């Protein structure tokens, strides 16, 4: 790989025995190539089916992390200090080498996650990335016009709220800890989990309000 790639992603580091693909992923890709060549599998048809499940694949893990952080101040503190370890406490083993960082929304700062180069995404906590996350317009506009992107998602923030965009890499994945909605005092972790959406953990949405759930 070229020096340019190193520069772009700063912390990037590849050594010879480190591959972007796990052993399991290599086997999955091998099968898919062979089955595609033989005409048994149409990759586009696989994509269509997989897109249907993208929302269900894993945000539930992230949902638990956020709900726990909202209801347990000590956990929140651990999560912000060392997200990889705090998430591991809940037993979601990710791929080796992915370092998780949790960024907390406040009235002063709203956080949004993107991967400008490709579509790095915190799979173990959020599952499959939505199609728009991988799209070129989102990847470029998230950086150049985050407020406009948020508006497209139906989110309008006060002008006094700063927007910070975090660019994921192969080694560092970001998860947004949204603000706990008002009017949820005394709610259990399970109740709070109902309010957490996938987009609120990417930063392109806000959690549901108590009135929005039945």
């Amino acid at each position, binding site marked *: *790989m*070229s020096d340019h*790639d190193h520069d*772009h*992603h700063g912390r*990037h580091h*590849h050594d*010879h025995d480190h*591959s*972007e*693909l*796990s052993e*399991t*992923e*290599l*086997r*999955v*890709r*091998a*099968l*898919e*190539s*062979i*089955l595609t060549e*033989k005409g*048994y*599998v*149409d990759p586009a*048809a*696989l994509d*269509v*089916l*997989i897109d*249907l*499940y993208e929302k*269900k*694949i*894993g945000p*539930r893990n992230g949902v638990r992390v956020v709900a726990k952080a909202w209801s347990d101040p000590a956990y929140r503190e651990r999560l912000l200090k060392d997200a990889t370890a705090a998430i591991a406490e809940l037993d979601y*083993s990710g791929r080796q080498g992915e370092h998780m960082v949790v960024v907390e929304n406040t009235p002063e700062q709203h956080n949004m996650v993107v991967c400008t*180069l*490709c579509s790095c995404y915190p*799979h*173990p906590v959020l*599952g*499959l990335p939505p199609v728009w996350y991988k799209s070129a317009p989102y990847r470029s506009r998230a950086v150049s016009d985050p407020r406009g992107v948020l508006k497209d998602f139906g989110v309008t923030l006060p002008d006094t709220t700063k927007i910070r965009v975090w660019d994921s*890499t*192969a080694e560092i994945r970001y998860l947004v800890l949204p603000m706990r909605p008002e009017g949820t005092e005394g709610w259990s972790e399970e109740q709070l989990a109902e309010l957490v959406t996938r987009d609120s953990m990417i930063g392109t949405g806000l959690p549901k309000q108590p009135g929005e759930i039945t």
Partner: protein
Amino acid sequence: MNLTPQQAMRAAVAVPGVPRDEDGPVFREPWEARAFAMALALHEAGIFSWKEWAETLGAQIKRAQAEGDPDTGETYYRHWLATLETLVAAKGVTTSDILHRYRDAWDHAADRTPHGAPIELTPEDFG
């Protein structure tokens, strides 16, 4: 060839142990969804019945348990993938030699591809 959520739901019901909720199968990682969808495509192509699939998968899980697999559900799709590899070889779709050759080629492709670029297989990856 289209794969539909209805087919996916039928498969999730027909095969014991598929993690699912009321809407269909659920996955922990992207590769699990791809492995699931590949089995669905092969089934639709008539390569095996779900009964045959379930028997082969069941035998695979038993073997893994005998070798100390904790069987916590986290390894379910690993067994699913091994079952795919077994059945495509048994049905003459491909051979385990070819599977290995492609696996090594993908490894080579991943190593030479900088982060951010899509990893693609080229003839040069087959050393």
